């Protein structure tokens, strides 16, 4: 009994320190990636100069977004240079020293755009150091819940039912955190609070399954039956977890995927520390709840002994 609390506090201390370190690293050490790339410095408060910008264009319509830029177009053997007035799939109009020149898209051969490029720092990306570890832990703890459920079905020992239930509670907590941070991020990055996108949909289904687990538990009165039903349901429900985890790699999805070797060392190290810290925190919560459960059991048995 005591060991649960001790373990919980050790894990809590380690997890707290590591998570804090990871967040400090994420905010003060790791760089801020640029969110896409903008060509004008319109938003002077948030954009960042990235350097000169010189791009080759092979079709007239690709110039459509470069109005006002210094362009050079070769069409019909002649080269025209000046500020771009407008461009679309039919023509390109350029303001040269001698006046406006219009080139039809059919004659367009090559083009070149010059200017300065600016990046918009993507501060929303910082949620990655929290959202991704939390989401990963939710999958892992769900796996533990399914594993303990399987153990319960095999052995019918009550302790496995308690372990499965407590794991499921931790899963619920992490799933809720993932949902909350994910919703904030989709608003920042995609401009919408919610999108019926494969990863989001399957994860939402997983949330519903975890909630359903507790609905099922609360509506069965008989203790042994409750344990067995809950165990069977958590195994059936766990089938969704790998689907949700791998779906972004299977079918086209807007949800970002971390590519191997895609992170710079400061980002990667902060991220790994955040993952370890979050595992420790999850473990701490699990141990705290287990300790509480065992205390409850002791109180119950003490009560029955007193009644005798």
């Amino acid at each position: 009994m005591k060991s649960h609390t001790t373990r919980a506090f050790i894990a809590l201390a380690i997890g707290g320190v590591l998570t804090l370190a990871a967040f400090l690293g994420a905010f003060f050490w790791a760089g801020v990636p640029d969110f896409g790339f903008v060509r004008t410095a319109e938003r002077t408060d948030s954009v960042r100069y990235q350097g000169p910008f010189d791009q080759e264009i092979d079709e007239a319509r690709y110039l459509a977004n470069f109005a006002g830029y210094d362009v050079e177009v070769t069409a019909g053997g002649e080269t025209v240079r000046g500020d771009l007035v407008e461009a679309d799939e039919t023509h390109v109009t350029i303001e040269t020293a001698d006046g406006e020149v219009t080139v039809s898209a059919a004659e367009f051969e090559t083009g070149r755009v010059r200017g300065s490029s600016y990046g918009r720092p993507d501060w929303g990306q910082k949620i990655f150091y929290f959202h991704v570890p939390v989401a990963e832990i939710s999958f892992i703890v769900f796996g533990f819940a399914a594993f303990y459920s399987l153990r319960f079905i095999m052995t019918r020992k009550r302790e496995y039912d308690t372990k499965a239930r407590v794991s499921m509670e931790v899963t619920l907590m992490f799933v809720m955190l993932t949902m909350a941070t994910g919703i904030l991020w989709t608003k920042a990055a995609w401009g919408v609070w919610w999108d019926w996108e494969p990863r989001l949909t399957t994860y939402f289904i997983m949330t519903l399954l975890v909630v359903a687990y507790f609905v099922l538990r609360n509506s069965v009165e008989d203790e042994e039956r409750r344990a067995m039903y809950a165990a069977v349901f958590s195994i059936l429900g766990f089938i969704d977890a790998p689907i949700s985890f791998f779906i972004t790699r299977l079918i086209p999805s807007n949800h970002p995927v971390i590519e191997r070797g895609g992170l710079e060392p400061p980002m990667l190290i902060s991220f790994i520390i955040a993952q370890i810290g979050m595992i420790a925190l999850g473990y701490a919560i699990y141990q705290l709840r287990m300790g509480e459960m065992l205390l409850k059991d002791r109180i119950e048995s003490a009560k029955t002994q007193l009644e005798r």
Partner: protein
Amino acid sequence: MASSSMRQFRAMLRKDIVMELRTKEMLMSMGLYSLLTMVVYFVALSQAGAGFDPRDIAAGLLWLAFIFTSMLGLNRSLVHEKDQGCLEALLLSPVDRPVIFFAKAIGNLIFLLVVEALTIPVFAFLFLQGQAVDVSTVALIPLVLVAGSVGIAGVGTLLATMSVNTTGKDFVLAMLFIPLMYPLLLGAVTATAAAIIGGPEGVSLFWTGMAWVIGYDVIMLLASYGLYEFIVGA
């Protein structure tokens, strides 16, 4: 041994069918429920306007009707067993648990398919009159109906066996059933919609949807078959 299991299976299935033929309770309630769903659909679509093409959402509407109708039927089929003490008698008799699972699931599958076969013409009559459909691909719809219903009946039988012993029977069934059914429903709606719209892309999309449904059926039926023993004996 195998032949005695087969005999037990046949006896249980016959019991369900004879009981249904005498009372006609499940078929009546499921059939009428799906008819009522059509009325609700009409109300829901009444303001859709002239540019609305019912073929675009016909597949979704059909599977919506099937999923809710099947929940009603699944609940009934197990409530009967429990209220009349039939399930306990079955458990006392020397019958393998998987045999009980298959007999109940096949019984539910038959009733579900009958109701689906009745619902589709009514739906087509009410919503798809005068709409051009590709007859060669529409002929594929029975395949996805059977594959989808197998999954619904299999997983549904397991979940209904759980939910009849809970305090909030139908609500618990819905809460467990709909999230678990999500992959199957998505595949079935994709396949049915592709079959209704037709064309060469329709056929390839149909088989993609079918692959989802069949994959789901294989995984979930194996899991349900393996786990039923623990549920029914608990």
